[in-house]
């Protein structure tokens, strides 16, 4: 009897120690094979998904509040409070499986820079997407209107994304970017895809229409993309992308060949500079990788991304552009002969070599805390930015976080005009979908 009790207690402890005790007699005690009736709905599931609710309205909302305290060259500044209200609303009309109309608008309301007393209010309403989808015999697919598109495969930098209006912000690389007004023609064939974009932004005559063909194909576990951009009066471009994975690491790369540049360039003229246009070939290339590591116990869940970017339109020598930046920052005349061309200079993105890296530790040691760091550097002028964010446990739709950001680099560098700056902040955001 005592032995039976001991064995029972031991069994209870053993079961309590397992992650999930299974009653196999219960689970595998009855019939293994069950009868199922095949679904014979009025509409095939692939068609039912295309019509869905026929008319749907939805969206998302967010409210962000951030308290910031800057430290410039070691001196603390005033603490400021900024806020932003935002919402996205969409309308999706699908009268039949072969046609739909989609519209999405964003409303953004920036609260005062300093809430007490209010200084500035700003409301922005923006059409983000408005397009119609139709097709020819379910073989060729058309999307006409303003639409979000994605050409490149890069994460922090994407020079191959040559048709979008919005550019990637390396500090917020997953943010939605503004797309062009275009007619997209898409012909999928096997695992390959062929696209032709006709782009209408700023087009006043038919001859000014921009054309951008692209194809994607796979070889083994690697996907390649080849594309081009042509518009009268603009410099033609060719692009290539590659994305693949080796083991647990995902790799991506892009290359762009531009026949001339839309930018103006500084040329030394004695002690000053002249802004000139340059012909010839310009190469931009980027490569990077992503890796995620999860340990056996769920205590180490790390995600890392690293990317290098070579910008052939950047300056090998940064001195000229530094002087121009410094003069503009100090509200002085820049050392340039032809001021009327000053606007064509690229004050940002003027470096030749860039590097970006991020490391995120999800659920630190199994907790509800997540930490992330970002390093962004212009290697050409030794400017850089380091930021670290700690996301605190969310409570429903309420997400708090704290962080610190520091820039380094000499005055006149890409983002270092004001010298070394450190900013600490605390933020809360409330958001959701409807």
């Amino acid at each position: 009897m005592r032995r039976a009790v001991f064995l029972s207690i031991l069994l209870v402890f053993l079961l309590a120690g397992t992650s999930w005790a299974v009653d196999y007699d219960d689970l595998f005690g009855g019939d293994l094979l069950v009868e199922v009736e095949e679904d014979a709905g009025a509409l095939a599931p692939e068609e039912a998904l295309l019509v869905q609710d026929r008319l749907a309205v939805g969206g998302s909302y967010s409210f962000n509040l951030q308290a910031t305290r800057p430290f410039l060259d070691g001196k603390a500044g005033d603490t400021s409070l900024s806020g932003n209200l935002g919402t996205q609303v969409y309308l999706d009309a699908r009268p039949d499986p072969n046609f739909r109309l989609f519209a999405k608008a964003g409303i953004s309301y920036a609260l005062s820079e300093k809430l007490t007393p209010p200084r500035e209010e700003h409301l922005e309403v923006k059409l983000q997407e408005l397009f119609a989808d139709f097709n020819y015999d379910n073989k060729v697919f058309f999307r006409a209107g303003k639409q979000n598109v994605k050409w490149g495969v890069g994460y922090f930098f994407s020079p191959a994304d040559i048709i979008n209006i919005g550019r990637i912000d390396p500090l917020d690389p997953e943010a939605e970017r503004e797309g062009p007004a275009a007619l997209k023609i898409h012909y999928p064939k096997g695992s390959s895809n062929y696209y032709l974009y006709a782009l209408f932004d700023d087009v006043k005559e038919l001859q000014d229409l921009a054309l951008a063909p692209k194809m994607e194909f796979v070889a083994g576990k690697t996907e390649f993309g080849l594309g081009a951009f042509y518009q009268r009066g603009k410099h033609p471009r060719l692009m290539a992308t590659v994305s693949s994975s080796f083991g647990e690491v995902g790799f991506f790369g892009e290359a762009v060949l531009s026949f001339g540049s839309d930018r103006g360039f500084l040329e030394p003229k004695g002690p000053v500079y002249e802004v000139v246009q340059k012909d010839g070939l310009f190469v931009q290339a980027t490569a990077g990788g992503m890796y995620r590591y999860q340990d056996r116990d769920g205590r180490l869940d790390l995600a890392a991304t690293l990317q290098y970017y070579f910008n052939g339109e950047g300056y090998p020598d940064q001195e000229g552009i530094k002087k121009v930046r410094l003069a503009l920052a100090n509200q002085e005349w820049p050392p340039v002969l032809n001021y009327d061309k000053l606007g064509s200079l690229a004050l940002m993105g003027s470096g030749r070599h860039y590097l970006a890296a991020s490391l995120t530790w999800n659920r630190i040691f199994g907790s509800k805390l997540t930490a992330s760091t970002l390093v962004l550097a212009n290697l050409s002028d030794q400017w850089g930015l380091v930021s670290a964010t700690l996301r605190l446990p969310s409570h429903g739709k309420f997400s708090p976080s704290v962080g610190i950001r520091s820039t380094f680099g000499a005055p006149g560098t890409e983002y270092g005009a004001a010298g070394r700056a450190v900013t600490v902040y605390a933020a809360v955001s409330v958001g959701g979908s409807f």
Partner: protein
Amino acid sequence: MKREALVITAVLLLLAVVPAVQAEDLSKMRAILEKIDAQSRFDGVDFSALLTMIVEDPEEGIEKLVVRQFRRDDGERYLLLIQEPVTQRGQGYLLEGDNLWFYDPSSRQFAHTSLKETFQDSDVRNADFGSSSYASSYEIEGYGEDVLGSFETYIMDLKAVDDTVPFPYARIWVTKDTNLVLKAEEYSLTRRLMRSALFPKYAKVGEAIIPVQMIFVDELVEGKKTQVTLSEISTAKIPDHVFTKAYLERVNR
């Protein structure tokens, strides 16, 4: 002397016969793996179903995912479209042979991903949505017999022969009479138990026999598991255009 000769002869005979018997049993086990793979495939027909996933996480609570699956085993294709929850609605996966893309509707971007990755932080791997490949991806290290519930089963210890499967080692329990996998334990390179999968309900759909209820248990996080149930099953022909990036873009908001 005569007796010694008899013993030596018997030992030699035994040494000759045992490997032959083992080889015969191994080939029988390999044949079972081939049958498992064959009956999990939809050859010549397409397959679609609605998958309801209940993800239980001791930290995050209980989450429900509803996923529409379209599958064509000729060409190793599938398309998965998340319908619930609303925050992930429209996210999709497109498999074509060795290539798997994840589609994010908010950025309208396709990104290459891996069959080994977990599906939406559940305990299901992207590879679990296709047909099984036990015979081609594993070799048998050992085997035995066991009883699971009211079923007599073979147990097989498997070692991956390539890196196409999420786990390098597995142990499976297969019914002796119907060649159905009731349970699978999956192990890391260091032979640590990572995940257990249970398949308590099967259904004959067309010529295939597939699990319609699956339970995946995370053996690293206590209390974390995912239950998958199939409904709205159909083997009707699926148009070719469904297995394209264009379809994922059209169906999305």
